[in-house]
């Protein structure tokens, strides 16, 4: 996604085109532009599914033998069977 945004930005502000034209001449510019365009398309293909992916949140009762305070709060896991502190 970052690559996609960066390439789009560079292309849009015209940073890539003049640089290519100056350094490599107009003939090479066409080829480089195609490469950049291909990278943009690849970026879109990679980014679109990633944009749609949602995290999956699971809430669980951490009943791995916890001990509860009177108020219902869980105590920290024990060490050697001893209760340590509340959180």
């Amino acid at each position, binding site marked *: 996604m970052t690559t996609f945004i960066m390439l789009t930005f560079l292309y849009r502000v015209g940073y890539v085109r003049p640089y290519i034209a100056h350094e490599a001449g107009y003939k090479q510019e066409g080829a480089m532009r195609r490469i950049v365009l291909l990278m943009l398309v690849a970026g879109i293909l990679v980014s679109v599914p990633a944009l749609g992916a949602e*995290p999956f949140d699971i809430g669980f009762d951490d*009943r*791995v033998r916890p001990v509860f305070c009177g108020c219902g709060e869980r105590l920290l896991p024990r*060490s050697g069977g001893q209760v340590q502190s509340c959180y």
Partner: protein
Amino acid sequence: MAAEKGFYHGVEVRFNRVTKEDQRRDGLASGRLQMICETMGMFQTGRNTPDYAGKLIFALDESRGTDVVVAANGINSAGDLRGKTVAGQFGMPSYLLLIASLARQGMRITDLNFLDVSMPEAVAAFVSGKADALCTYEPHVSSSLMVRSGVHLLLSSRDFPGMAVDVAIVQEDVISARREDLQKIYEGWTMAVAYIRDNPDESGELIAEALGIPADEFRQMSTGLGFFGKAENEKYFGVEDPCCESDARIIFNLMGRALEKNGLTNAVSSGSKRIDLSIIGTVKLKAEKFR
């Protein structure tokens, strides 16, 4: 374990410790949580309508001896608890164990004096002799057995297979909207269980680290815990033989009736409505090497 090993096939699974039941239910209802994990009994407790939200889609693990009822000298069966004082915590698996045992004797929780207090208080009441029995779990079992003379194990979750089962619960709309993700998560879970069985040392250390406890402590705890892999899930939920009532449905219905009878819920839903087999039934393990 599954997340660490990449078994979820790209699904970003986030784990949230939510110790209070009402907060888990609110999270599920609001859509903040796509899944909650808790015992089958807890899922049915304190309902006011049979049309509550959520369906069980697979089982995670079960208590095999970790949840128990210990009793003082002279109490040798659940029937002997009539008129006695039993300390424990309402709704916990050992409490449900007690109810199930009483039901076998034709008794209810009202036939005894149940002292519903925090676990440290319950242990203190039992050790001091104020209570005749204690519904508890490790590590209190070992300490309770040692401190008071004549104390013995009366009931164990090992004697009630399939009852103290932790299950994965989701909203109906998540099943339809994120079916593919759920299948990946279930598959990831079963692969992790297989991996744990094949690599107990490595996985024990990884899980202990995630829980923030020493590996030895986790190993000790896990002796009373049985994971539900693919085969166990298919057997428990009767996927291979859908014509008949599965263990999961039978136990779900029995537990619901027992909870209602004992005033722990006002409404009971049926297992056929609450159990959705579409995820277990369609998932085929791709990674055969982890079986």
